[in-house]
């Protein structure tokens, strides 16, 4: 039986949870409510008047080819960021797991990039790939490749993906390493005796046993790519060229604060709100069930 602490009155427990509820209400529920409310109006750019349009903002949004393109961009961007950062992190974690000497140093070095803020990371990568003064673009030029992410949509997407994935590798690496180290050594040894070589062992034993970690990271990374990569995109491409790197979150910003279309921006926030709710439900619903072996 679960042990429960019981309070005699109702006021003490209310008092104890009140600060948390107050913070959530002021900083999350109120703005979310505002967004939903505003999404039903078209305000003038200076905020003096609002005109009721009902679901007009949403109708306009979903008939807007740029908005639909942004969905595709977001999907491509998130999948790439997630696959790249998780793939590299897993590879590094497998290597680190085999290390006996110096694993502490190796791990510490790998964790460092996590401490770099996304916007700063964006600036770092921007400098390296700057079309005029960037080190990497200069070397690419020497090799005969003309790097220009300001004009080339594919290169712009590649750069924001790399910059976003880079800082994420550390985080994923930590979780993968912990997951790998939680697999009993004797199970791996038993598989070795059973005749499985490294790659077979990884495919049939290690990877399935890592599935709880992998699923967790999958959800967390998608959420990251959706919502927390704003700084990187803002510093490197500002959503361009030709909106090629305008993911949904960036579009909320550029339509609302740059384009001054607050109604549409609010409607987009509501769409994102729904999306993140779905992701959270998926996370809670399946993280316990699907991944257990």
């Amino acid at each position, binding site marked *: 039986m679960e042990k429960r602490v019981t309070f005699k009155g109702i006021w003490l427990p209310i008092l104890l949870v009140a600060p948390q509820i107050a913070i959530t209400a002021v900083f999350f529920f109120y703005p979310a409510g505002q967004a939903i409310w505003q999404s039903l109006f078209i305000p003038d750019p200076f905020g003096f008047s609002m005109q009721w349009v009902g679901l007009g903002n949403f109708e306009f949004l979903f008939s807007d080819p740029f908005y639909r393109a942004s969905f595709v961009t977001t999907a491509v961007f998130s999948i790439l960021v997630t696959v790249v950062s998780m793939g590299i992190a897993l590879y590094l974690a497998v290597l680190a797991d085999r290390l006996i000497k110096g694993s502490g140093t190796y791990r510490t070095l790998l964790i460092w990039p996590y401490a770099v803020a996304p916007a700063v990371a964006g600036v770092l990568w921007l400098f390296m790939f700057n079309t005029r003064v960037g080190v990497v673009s200069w070397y690419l030029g020497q090799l005969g490749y003309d790097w220009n992410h300001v004009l080339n949509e594919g290169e712009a997407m590649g750069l924001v993906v790399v910059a976003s994935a880079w800082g994420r590798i550390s985080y994923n690496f930590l979780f993968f390493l912990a997951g790998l180290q939680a697999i*009993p050594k*004797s*199970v791996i*040894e*038993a*598989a*070795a*005796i*059973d*005749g*499985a*070589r490294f790659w*077979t062992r990884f495919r*049939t*034993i290690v990877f*399935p*046993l890592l*599935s709880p970690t992998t699923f967790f990271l999958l959800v967390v990374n998608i959420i990251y790519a959706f919502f927390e990569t704003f700084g990187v995109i803002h510093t490197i491409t500002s959503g361009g060229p030709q909106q090629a790197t305008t993911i949904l979150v960036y579009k909320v910003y550029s339509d609302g604060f740059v384009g001054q279309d607050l109604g549409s921006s609010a409607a987009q926030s509501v769409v994102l709100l729904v999306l993140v709710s779905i992701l959270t439900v998926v996370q809670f619903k399946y993280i316990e069930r699907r991944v257990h*072996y």
Partner: protein
Amino acid sequence: MATVTLRNVKKSFGKTDVIHGVDIDIADGEFIVIVGPSGCGKSTLLRMVAGLETITSGEVQIDGKVVNTIEPMERDIAMVFQNYALYPHMSVFDNMAYGLKIAKVPKSEIADRVATAAKLLQLEPYLQRKPRELSGGQRQRVAMGRAIVRKPAVFLFDEPLSNLDAKLRVQMRLEIKALQRELGVTALYVTHDQVEAMTLADRMVVMNGGVADQIGKPLDVYADPQTAFVAGFIGSPPTNFLDGGLVPGLSNGVTLGIRPEHIQMGDPGRLSAHVAYTEALGAETLIHCRLTDGSQLTARQDASVPIPAEGQSIGITWEDGHAMTFDANGRRL
């Protein structure tokens, strides 16, 4: 079916020597138990035979072939681990079939072999279950089944029973012995439990601090231990050791060893003692005595003999043939 030979096998981890040169010749079909206290290097020795640890120097041969640098999978061995090391995400069937699938054995033959092993181990009702849905004893059987289906030349057991409760341990002990006899496969079995060693072994290897102190048939080792360590480790309660200076006819520096069942009580004895406390176990009684110099001694007597009162003074004696003497280094004289 194979012989296993260890030639002056040594192991060091960095600067620490763990195994100082062990020689063992194991005949085809023989059941060898390596027994010793924790840290004596017995598991390391087994893992070297398995190929899970490198061999620092010396030679391990399986069926006459040196396997020092050969991968575990090519040594034709199967191992049962202390924690069973079952694949948690696979069913019992898949656990047993794993090695065969990798060896690309035809599906029908895999099914046959697993079915045979499951029948032998009474695992048939559980083939579709996952390891976490099994009891400790059943998991143990699956681990055995995984070893059996591959028809290896050598079975290696690394303390396979130490995670089971006492009753199950006795039962599984008997089953392992019967199974090994039936299959006739050479077996190397590591344990710290001297009862398992005595009951399972055709021959046992008693290890102490990285050295094989004695290799022999269990009863021979029991009756004729070559070192004080072996005399003390094999047998429960352990052999009594007395300083030679206490005993008339022996000199200082020599140690006398007498097994509890060889101590006779009654006046007048060779030594005088008083009864410290007694333990009546039903079939037998253990009598713990204290000698005049404070050293302790345990005697074992049949339950039919009257139990002396605690605190009573008593004479202690033994037959000369039962006394074992050891030099200062613990070697038998």
